[in-house]
């Protein structure tokens, strides 16, 4: 009997944590209990950065978290984090399930990680306390908290905002106290972290699409028998499939909950979105200094096809 310990930073109620429960059931079923999965969601074993280190060192089997935590090991992943890249979630997954995904998996493998699948973290949307965002110009001067990621920071700078890096644990009180004007996250996170309590305006900017990936330690995965490896892959495919459906269905529900809770919602028109895309065109070119230009061109080509 082998125990596979899996850690994640999403709360227990998040669809990704739910998917890992399905993964656990299916793995144990498929291997007749020879493999046992122990899930530790909700940062029980530490934050995402630490979980990634734990997987890299082989202290735990796998981690499920935003791909953002791998972009400083595998910079190619930044290419799929470019602003206004995907028109829809279907397009996003089509790209990740195709040659782009295969390429990313190879890069991860070189760094000692086996990628088991991509789930939906979702489109990220901006909220703030100053004014409704309906066009690129409305970002001007807003102090918005972003993840510490160069593409993200450059994007908001290009939009005229004043991006601030801050730990998410401090974000709620920073917004409450007015240290910052706004933040950006998927609806799900905005709702579960109760940012609606301290934010007035919400727009469906959808400026980035975020993926969650489930990543195992290469050596630990390699030590499993071929049958067990297959069982892990199969179980994960099923879990990922479930999660993508569930997340898509819940996304609008979370948005409507935020509106019902009193947030003032503004939909971004196609013209306004085009304006934002225009303003951030330079980001992909700039990224070519850090990431193989061929990879970026490939992602750009695949995403519009």
């Amino acid at each position, binding site marked *: 009997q082998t125990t596979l310990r899996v850690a994640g930073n999403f709360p227990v109620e998040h669809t990704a944590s739910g998917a890992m429960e399905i993964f656990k059931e299916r793995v144990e079923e498929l291997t007749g209990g020879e493999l046992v999965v122990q899930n530790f969601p909700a940062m029980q074993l530490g934050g995402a950065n630490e979980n990634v*280190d734990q997987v*890299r*060192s082989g202290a735990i089997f796998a981690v499920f978290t935003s791909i953002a935590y791998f972009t*400083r*090991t595998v910079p190619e992943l930044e290419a799929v984090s470019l602003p206004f890249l995907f028109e829809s979630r279907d397009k996003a997954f089509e790209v990740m399930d195709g040659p782009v995904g295969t390429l990313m998996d190879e890069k991860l493998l070189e*760094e000692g990680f086996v990628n088991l699948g991509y789930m939906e973290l979702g489109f990220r949307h901006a909220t703030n306390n100053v004014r409704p965002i309906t066009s690129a110009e409305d970002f001007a*001067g807003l*102090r918005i908290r972003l*993840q*510490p*990621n*160069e593409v993200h*920071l450059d994007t908001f700078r290009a939009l005229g905002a*004043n*991006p*601030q*890096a*801050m*730990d998410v644990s401090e974000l709620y009180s920073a917004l409450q106290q007015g240290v910052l004007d706004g933040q950006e996250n998927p609806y799900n996170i905005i709702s579960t972290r109760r940012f609606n309590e301290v934010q007035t305006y919400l727009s469906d900017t959808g400026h980035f699409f975020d993926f969650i990936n489930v990543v195992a330690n290469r050596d630990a995965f390699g030590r499993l028998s071929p049958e067990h490896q297959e069982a892990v892959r199969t179980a994960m495919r099923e879990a990922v499939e479930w999660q993508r459906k569930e997340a898509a269905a819940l996304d609008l529900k979370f948005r409507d909950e935020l509106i019902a809770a009193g947030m003032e919602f503004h939909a971004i028109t196609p013209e306004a979105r085009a304006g934002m895309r225009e303003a951030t065109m330079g980001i992909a070119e700039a990224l070519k200094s850090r990431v193989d230009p061929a990879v970026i061109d490939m992602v750009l080509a695949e995403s519009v096809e």
Partner: protein
Amino acid sequence: MTRLEGGPDLSGPLAFVDRFARGIDVLSRWVIVVMMAAMAILVSLQVFFRYALNSSIDFADEASRFFFVAAIFLALPHGIRRGVHVGIDLFVNMMPRGLHTVLFRISAAASAVLMIVILWTGAIATADKWNELMPTLPVSAGLYYLPVLFTGFHGFLHLVVLAVGGPACMTTESET
């Protein structure tokens, strides 16, 4: 031979370890001073940038946390012989002096074991992470582990002196 303030005469290999540990004390003290100053300045500057210049330093959070981690872990061994790290001495104080000394040595030896494990596993963790870059700076994120690893090394030296030399090797000098 090294004469400790109010302590015993150390000789042989122990005196060497002690001199070595104190040499590192001097170096590490200056690194800590620089790290602390850099941390305080960077955090203040971030506020200044936000309000006076309406902009921000992207790497301020990252870099100041690095200075903080470095200062804390480099300072940890400095507290060992100064008795900064508090313990329960009520029961040992009731014991006869001989037993007290034995327990002191056992505790220092166990702490030294802990330190050597930190040094060893810290080196592994550093090597594992070396290919990852910090989120907003083009330097290895493995650097974060170096102060932890160094705590293991520096702390081990001081604890060996305590385990072999006994309670008399606790220093009475002031904190600077």
